[in-house]
């Protein structure tokens, strides 16, 4: 009997706990959806503004290839439309959990700052470097001719010749590194970035190396001119 009595007490207790828990869940303070939606809308707005800046940036980049510009415009366009659609959905969200998920998607689904903006900047950098490679390569040819002419005039061109060799080596290194870098970095998606935050690191490192190569090549060219005119 005692045993039955005890079991009855435990049962009543469990029911009480469950009842209390159910009551507590029901009485959770209602999320202020309006305020949350305002924050989400602001997050969308700052990204849309960034996309507009990137659009203008790409359009004004003289050395950006038409192919890369087209890819960038596609990315920006799809991102803009995706964010616009997402904002409409957010404004219609009726519960906090859906709103929270949608608001998180503003970042994770588009990665405007973490991925898209760097992609555009790197594409501009890479194509500009390609233009510099072509330009400095042409100058190296002219400098070679100038060195030959100076040598024919009795000028000691030992240093100038060495600098030209270094200049050409730097140019060759840059020209060898550049192909495909921009094409590749523009293919990364927000999903890939979410899985690996360093997807752009390799491209960025390569472009920094090319930047250094070209700066040194130009410095060589300027030193050659100084040597020849000394």
């Amino acid at each position, binding site marked *: 009997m005692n045993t039955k009595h005890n079991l009855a007490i435990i049962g009543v207790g469990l029911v009480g706990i469950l009842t209390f828990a159910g009551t507590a869940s029901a009485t959770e303070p209602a999320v202020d959806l309006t305020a949350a939606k305002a924050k989400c809308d602001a997050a969308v707005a700052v990204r849309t503004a960034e996309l507009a800046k990137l659009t203008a940036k790409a359009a004004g980049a003289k050395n950006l290839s038409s192919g890369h510009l087209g890819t960038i415009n596609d990315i920006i366009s799809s991102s803009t439309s995706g964010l616009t659609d997402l904002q409409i959905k957010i404004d219609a969200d009726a519960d906090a959990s859906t709103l929270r998920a949608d608001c998180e998607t503003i*970042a994770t689904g588009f990665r405007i700052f973490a991925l898209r*903006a760097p992609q555009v900047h790197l594409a*501009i950098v890479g194509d500009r470097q390609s233009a510099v490679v072509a330009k*400095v390569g042409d100058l190296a040819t002219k400098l070679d001719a*100038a060195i030959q002419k100076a040598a024919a005039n009795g*000028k000691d061109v030992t240093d100038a010749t060495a600098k030209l060799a270094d200049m050409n080596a730097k140019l060759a290194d840059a020209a060898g590194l550049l192909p495909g870098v921009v094409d590749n970095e523009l293919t990364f998606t927000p999903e890939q970035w979410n899985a690996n935050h360093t997807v752009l690191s390799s491209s960025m490192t390569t*472009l920094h190396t090319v930047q250094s190569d*070209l700066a040194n090549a130009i410095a060589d*060219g300027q030193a050659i*001119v100084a040597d020849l005119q000394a």
Partner: protein
Amino acid sequence: MANHFSPRTMTRTRIIVAFAAGVLALSACGSSSTPLSNVKAPTATSTTAANSSNTESSVVSVTTLAGASTASTTVSAPAAAASVTTVPAAPAKVTPAPVAAPPVAAPFVVDPALTQALNSAKQLLGSNTQDLNDAAAAAANGG
């Protein structure tokens, strides 16, 4: 006027006078400042006293005592003996062979357009710095 002197006396006088003349003549020779041994024989052109002015080395003065037949010759100092000083010939001045100057290269002027193009390329490349910084900043931002 009567001659008061006898021929013997005259003869004796002549002898005395002659003796006296001889003594005087000898005395004159002995007082010569120049030993006879030092007397240089006058040259042929100098036998004539006060001859031409270009015979200064051998002017001969002839002093003839009154009545004396002996001539005393005073010869001026002989011209300095020809002192032959052999002046060593100056060493031949060696003039180094002219060294050909290295050819001076004319100032070489690089086409200014080349310099300008290099500066332009540098400027173009430099504008990448901002984009690289923006890319890094955006990536660090996340979101």
